[in-house]
């Protein structure tokens, strides 16, 4: 293939990328964002699939069978958890204007500059090899196309101006600078870039599927055909027997863990999934769309690998290039070119995103803090920051790509795509403890994070990149077999004597566990400063802060308006300054120009926005250079935090409470209604009682006066009147007693105190005997039949006596003057005892039978006048019976008599003794 065709095609492809990016930015400016939907978001996540996926997967499959899978199973397994982990990270990052993974770690641990520097260094050292293998992939595939040689390693021996990789590196720098550093955005979002990345994701998938379909269905007759032809190859054994492939459960486990971390914590993944995210709800769709993408792009890996092994049994062709070599050798040059562009897109998308992410970290977390420390940046006459920041970014981009190119030249060529990729994965996995700990564990401290990260980073460097440098001859390799300084337990592939693991598993095991323990114990044994405490609380409880829509600010920083204005102007430019101030004025309803000293709200607001451009740690330092912080003690800090927590808790409870209140209101209404009824009853009660009191008083008073003023009254009259007076007086005192009794019973409603085991039969018999004489006096024939002598009930002796006496007295009252009969019977019915008191008196009309148990109701007896009584007797009786969990009823026929029936529960002594039988 002629080089010019390849160059033309590449330029054409890049031009399309430019167009897509440009178009997306235009749309974004018009407010019709292209990337603001879950599908583009999911596609942008597919930046995960690099040249490693595109070429390296086939190579891995050709050598180890299923070994390519765990790197994709990991992200697929963890995708459902994104809604928990990634969503929280996104929400924190949005509200704190965090724009890189180093910034995230630095912000969480007290906006620490040194943590930011460390995280940046880990990222740079970890990712540069990864970028370099992308350059390698592009360069080698282009060389293959041009030379039509299937030998992978014979390129780039010419002079440097003929070096394909160098030109590719330069082209990538140009593209990245153009779309990655066009302006300093507050949220560091690049819609054009994201659109281009999404486009590349589609392109690489289509290209790979095309190659797969061509190889599987045109060169061969489908998957079954390929497997049949390959049945004699040694690789088949590995496919059917995982143990034979040298991949054991442990390796798979570590690779899956690595990829789970990588999908979230690779700087470029963090950038597309968190920083470029426009809506955290997109995660819902992305968590199944992205695994689907992974599934599709892995569909033809095994058929292509087998097909390559069938075609090149001598092993002369690097399996990493099968996907390209097979179409070339089949004479399909244009298909090969298309496939190569697919690989190109996979590599470029990774490089662009990774470089952007790294350049943000380098400028915000490495260069700026250093400049700030050297004081140059705070001097307005020396340093115009808003312009220089972009310059720093651009230089960073060039630097990163150059470093990657250098690595590629010196080390990268000796290793497969996959092995170098995994080294990078292991590096970023070091972020896992401090980030996951940071968002779920409030106790994690700056010191702990620093110890953990440093340990992990050191172990990583010692066990993975260092040996690769030695093996490629950059440094002496004797330490690999003998241990560093000749100490045998410090062998990079067998640290502390641990053997039997492959290099990656070994490195992951040691670096992550020491990292974790360093972080954990370092945190337990160190204290947090006030900034750390607020940040830790915010990160861990971000949802609560959002629920209560509380302003997140505890530190009271004040600054002169003029200082603040100058500073903002220098870092963000005149235009952003005016917008920010205007928004603040709008929100808080005050005029900034009228102020002399900026309130803490404004200072915090500017700091947060500044953090969006230059990182939290730098923003903190810069703001602190002009702001006076009200001294705040740790105790005060805790108090404020507690209050915040209280407010949050309170606002949550409020919602609950208002529901409760509604229910309570209803209950209150009901209660109020009852109270009103009670009030009514009470009023009626008082009226009735006074009426009942007045009646005897009337006779007493009137007759007393008559006796007083008529001394000449006959003795009979005198006697008659005096007797009435005595009777009525008795009635009066009875009434008073009964009112008192009523009060007593109502009070005793509350507890069953005074209850005892009562021999009820005995009680009834005694009461009856007491009244027997009275009955005989009134010509009444008394009868008493007690069917069961041993009845025991639980109750108040006096009250029950009162009931029985009252019922018999009533019967006496209502008995006819001659031939009266009273019958008292007591019997057991089931678990109850039943007492009946019958008379043959006038009876109670049916319409009054219900009323007799109410207060002050008496059955009228027109002929005889009323029998003496207050009307309270039956009411009290009923209350007492109910108090004893019993019931009372009446049955009566006018002129035939009345029967009162009391049912009281028996104490179940018998039932216990019967239980054995």
């Amino acid at each position, binding site marked *: 293939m002629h080089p010019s065709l390849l160059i033309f095609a590449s330029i054409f492809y890049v031009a399309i990328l430019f167009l897509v990016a440009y178009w997306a930015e235009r749309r974004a400016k018009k407010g019709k964002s292209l990337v603001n939907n879950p599908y583009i978001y999911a596609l942008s996540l597919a930046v995960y699939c690099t040249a490693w996926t595109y070429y390296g997967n086939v190579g891995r499959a050709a050598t180890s069978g299923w070994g390519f899978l765990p790197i994709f199973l990991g992200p697929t397994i963890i995708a459902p958890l994104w809604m928990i982990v990634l969503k929280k990270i996104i929400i924190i990052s949005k509200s704190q204007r965090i724009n890189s993974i180093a910034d995230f770690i630095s912000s969480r641990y007290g906006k620490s500059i040194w943590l930011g520097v460390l995280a940046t260094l880990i990222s740079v050292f970890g990712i540069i090899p990864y970028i370099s293998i992308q350059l390698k992939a592009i360069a080698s595939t282009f060389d293959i196309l041009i030379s039509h040689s299937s030998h992978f390693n014979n390129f780039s021996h010419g002079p440097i101006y003929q070096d394909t990789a160098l030109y590719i590196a330069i082209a990538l720098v140009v593209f990245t600078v153009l779309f990655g550093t066009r302006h300093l955005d507050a949220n560091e979002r690049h819609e054009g870039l994201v659109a281009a990345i999404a486009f590349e994701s589609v392109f690489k998938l289509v290209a790979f599927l095309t190659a797969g379909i061509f190889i599987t269905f045109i060169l061969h007759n489908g998957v079954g055909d390929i497997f049949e032809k390959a049945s004699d190859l040694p690789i088949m054994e590995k496919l059917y027997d995982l143990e034979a492939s040298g991949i054991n459960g442990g390796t798979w486990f570590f690779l899956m863990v690595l990829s789970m971390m990588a999908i979230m914590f690779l700087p470029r993944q963090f950038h597309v999934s968190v920083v470029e995210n426009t809506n955290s709800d997109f995660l819902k769709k992305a968590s199944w769309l992205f695994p689907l993408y992974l599934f599709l792009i892995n569909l033809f890996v095994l058929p292509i690998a087998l097909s390559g092994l069938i075609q090149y049994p001598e092993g002369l062709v690097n399996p990493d290039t099968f996907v390209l070599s097979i179409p070339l050798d089949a004479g399909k040059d244009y298909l090969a070119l298309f496939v190569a562009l697919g690989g190109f897109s996979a590599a470029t998308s990774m490089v662009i995103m990774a470089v952007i992410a790294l350049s943000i970290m380098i400028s915000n977390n490495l260069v700026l803090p250093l400049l700030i420390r050297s004081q140059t940046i705070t001097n307005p006459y020396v340093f115009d920051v808003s312009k220089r920041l972009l310059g720093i970014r651009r230089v960073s981009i060039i630097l990163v790509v150059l470093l990657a190119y250098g690595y590629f030249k010196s080390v990268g060529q000796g290793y497969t795509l996959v092995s170098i990729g995994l080294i990078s994965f292991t590096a970023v996995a070091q972020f896992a403890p401090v980030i996951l700990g940071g968002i779920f564990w409030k106790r994690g401290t700056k010191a702990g994070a620093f110890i953990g990260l440093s340990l992990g980073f050191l172990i990583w460097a010692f066990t993975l990149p260092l040996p690769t440098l030695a093996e490629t001859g950059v440094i002496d390799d004797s330490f690999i077999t003998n241990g560093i300084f000749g100490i045998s337990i410090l062998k990079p592939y067998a640290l502390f004597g641990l053997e039997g693991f492959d290099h990656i598993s070994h490195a992951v095991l040691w670096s992550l566990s020491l990292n974790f323990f360093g972080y954990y114990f370092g945190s337990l044994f160190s204290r947090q400063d006030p900034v750390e405490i607020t940040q830790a609380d915010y990160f861990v409880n971000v949802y609560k802060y959002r629920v209560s829509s509380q302003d997140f600010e505890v530190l009271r920083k004040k600054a002169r308006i003029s200082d603040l204005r100058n500073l903002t102007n220098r870092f963000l430019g005149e235009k952003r300054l005016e917008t920010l101030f205007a928004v603040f004025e709008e929100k808080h309803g005050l005029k900034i120009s009228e102020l002399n000293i900026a309130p803490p709200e404004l200072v915090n607001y500017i700091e947060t926005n500044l953090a969006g451009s230059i990182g939290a740690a730098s923003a903190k330092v810069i703001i602190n250079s002009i702001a006076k912080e009200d001294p705040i003690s740790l105790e005060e800090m805790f108090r404020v935090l507690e209050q915040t927590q209280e407010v949050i808790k309170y606002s949550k409870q409020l919602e609950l409470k208002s529901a409760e209140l509604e229910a309570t209101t209803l209950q209150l209404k009901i209660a109020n209604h009852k109270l009103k009824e009670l009030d009514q009853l009470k009023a009626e009660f008082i*009226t009735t009682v*006074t*009426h009942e009191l*007045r*009646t*005897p*008083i*009337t*006779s*007493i*008073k*009137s*007759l007393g*006066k*008559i006796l007083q*003023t*008529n001394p000449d009254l006959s003795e009979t*009259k005198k006697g*008659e*009147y005096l007797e*009435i007076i005595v*009777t*009525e007086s008795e009635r009066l005192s009875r009434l008073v007693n009964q009112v008192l009794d009523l009060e007593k019973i109502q009070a005793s409603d509350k507890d069953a105190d005074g209850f005892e085991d009562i021999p009820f039969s005995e009680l009834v018999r005694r009461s009856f005997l007491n009244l027997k004489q009275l009955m005989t006096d009134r010509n009444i024939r008394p009868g008493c039949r007690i069917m069961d002598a041993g009845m025991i009930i639980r109750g108040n002796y006096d009250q029950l006596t009162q009931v029985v006496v009252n019922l018999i007295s009533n019967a006496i009252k209502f008995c006819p003057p001659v031939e009266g009969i009273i019958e008292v019977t007591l019997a057991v019915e089931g678990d109850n005892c039943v007492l009946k008191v019958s008379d043959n008196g006038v009876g109670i009309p049916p319409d009054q039978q219900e009323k007799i148990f109410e207060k002050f109701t*008496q*059955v*009228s007896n*027109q002929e005889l*006048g*009323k029998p003496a009584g207050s009307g309270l007797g039956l009411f009290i009786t009923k209350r007492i019976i109910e108090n004893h969990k019993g019931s009372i009823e009446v049955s009566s026929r006018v002129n035939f008599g009345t029967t009162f029936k009391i049912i009281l529960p028996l104490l179940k002594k018998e039932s216990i003794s019967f239980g054995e039988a």
Partner: protein
Amino acid sequence: MENRKGKTILIVDDEPNIVVAVEFLMEKEGYNIRKCYDGQSALASINEVVPDLILLDVMMPGMDGFEVAKKIRENQDWENLKIIFLTAKGTREDKMKGYANGGEIYLTKPFDNDNLVIAVNEAIEFG
């Protein structure tokens, strides 16, 4: 004093002991006395002999005093019959009800003997 002679007073009360006292006071003033212990029999008694004045209790079993007064006022033949309520019900509402139902005088129990006598005499003489 003259025109008290031969005047008849009907005492209606369900409390026999109160009737005893009132009866004594009225007899002493020289009135003829009739007695009833509930509303229904009071109306029957009036139907038999129309008294000049009725001393009417309110709270009685069966028909209460207000109802009795209402019935009396519904009958044209009895329009000269004076009604004095003599009752333990003493609220303002009760009094209003009493007047509304055609009572001339409303006295509450326990009453003062002299006041009762004066009220009855005045009603008979000047009513």
